[in-house]
């Protein structure tokens, strides 16, 4: 797997690195030589760390929330009858909870779509900081 990366980087260097060679000892210089980018440096950069922190702050609590509610629902309906009490007419709370899980899914998907745009921007900024624009790698 590492070989194709080296190849794409070589391509990248051909398309972009050549103009930057005269800049001197920059990051792009090493790429022009066909080296694998320094992922450890990117990983420990402030921008990337911030991205990971923000992602974690969103994904960990929401995942615990949705899996927790889902399991709670299954435990309640399996081991007790409390949700079988009437909500309106013949509709019991079981249906209300079930539909809340549907609504929860749609809401979390929508919220994540918004959040992910911010994550995308942060990721893009990180890549740019290391002179790498992902649009060019397609």
């Amino acid at each position, binding site marked *: 797997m590492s070989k*194709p990366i080296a190849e*794409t980087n070589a391509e990248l260097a051909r398309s972009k690195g050549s103009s930057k060679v005269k800049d001197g000892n920059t990051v792009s210089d090493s790429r022009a030589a066909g080296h694998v980018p320094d992922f450890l440096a990117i990983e420990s950069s402030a921008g990337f760390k911030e991205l990971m922190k923000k992602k974690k702050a969103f994904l960990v609590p929401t*995942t615990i929330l949705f899996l927790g509610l889902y399991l709670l629902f299954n435990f309640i309906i399996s081991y007790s009858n409390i949700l079988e009490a009437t909500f309106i007419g013949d509709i019991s709370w079981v249906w209300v909870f*079930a539909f809340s899980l*549907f609504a929860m899914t*749609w809401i979390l998907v929508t919220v994540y779509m918004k959040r992910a745009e911010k994550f995308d921007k942060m990721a893009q900024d990180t890549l740019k900081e290391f002179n790498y624009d992902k649009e060019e790698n397609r």
Partner: protein
Amino acid sequence: MNATVIIIFLVIVAMTLVITYYAAKRTNSTSDFYTAGGGLTGWQNGMAIAGDYLSAASFLGIAGSIALFGFDGFLFSIGYLVAYLVVLFIVAEPLRNLGKYTLADMINARFNAKKVRGAAALSSITIVVFYMIAQLVGAGALIQLLFGIDYLWAVLLVGVMMTIYVLFGGMTATSWVQIIKAVLLMVGTVILSFLVLQRFDFSILEMFAQVKTATPHGEAFLNPGVKYTIPLDTISLMLALVLGTAGLPHILMRFFTVRDAKTARSSVMWATWIVGIFYVMTIFLGFGAAAFVGSEKIISTNAAGNMAAPLLAQALGGDILMSFISAVAFATILAVVAGLVLTGASAFAHDIYGQIIKKGKASEREQMLAARYASVGVSVFSILLAIFAQNLNVAFLVSLAFCIAASANLPVIIYTIFWKKFNTTGAISAILTGLISALVLVSISPSVMNPEAGAAIITGTPIFPLTNPAIVSIPLGFIGGLVGTLLSKESDIKKYAEVKVRANTGGFRQL
């Protein structure tokens, strides 16, 4: 079989063949073949995911199950839908950013070891085979019922169609068959739902009140506990459903058909809306069938309740609507099995032949040939299995496929993306522990062993009490990966940094 059925049926077949013809012209490389060149848009892939996911078991099976068992028939749908949050939050974007054609590609982005690829291919193939047998046996029985032709011919018909789509049109044809099927399925379900709701004066309360008196279960019909009475069994199964989707190879493969993580994300959004709205409408179909067809008639036509939706269509819209719904069911079957053939072929031709045997050095022409041979091979093998499995009870194979996906694939995906210390030994042991424990536990469970002769594959008292082993095998998959990792000293921090950066930024892709 009346004339309307034949006409609608032929129109669908002709339409899919035209698609395949145009798709074949655009299928010139392995990337075209496996991923439609990676050029699908978010809504296209979202519809295709829905088309891949909503099998005949979902359409006819769930509608029938709701008609016969009420709330319990609907229960699975909750798991099937919430599962997409796992797909969206954890799997979709890293998979798109790291992988090329298969799940094994993604895991190998970190490990680059033949053994890991082999293990991942093995679990994908196992899942595809089980899922496929269930689909084909179900399809054979259904088409027999819907169109009144022999089981053997029904399986051959579906088998030949799926082979043509995949062999000539690759992922482009498969995707468009799935998209068209999703549209047809939604149109059919909306029409039926509208007709049902009209009969209840568009009042949900009225619907609940009337259904209660229409079924032999009475009030219990509207609450859990009619069908699933063993709590731990239900929970185990629901766990397999919610965690399994994110490990199903034919669903994962769909994320390689889009250009980037952003599009992968929006395809999950589309899929979530379509799948969710569909499941809500199955309630109307099921309740409608219970009220206007009646459980006696549903059971007498097919004991599992699979004919509830077509019978409802006949009751509400006559023969024409019934023909349309039957044709939709046929399209549904075709779309799902085509996706499975392609996924199985990718594991054989790309992972095993291209990467393991040829060490990634096969020429483009060799790869294409391998992909096409593998497609035919997977098709023929599944058709033969389906013919021999005709009289076996194979319905449990779908939930087993979800269980293996959750136990063998999900742990390794999560560890690969999130765990710094995870290593090659851990990856192999995570996959194999999950796979083997799920298989062994199921083979000694009530799904396979039944004291009553002929009720299951083996006659005898089951050793493992749960029909679905997920609650045991998923933790085992995670523990397997943990223990394997700790037993080996190997670790590559640099490689993990690379995987982490690539998975989270979408940069440094190799295409």
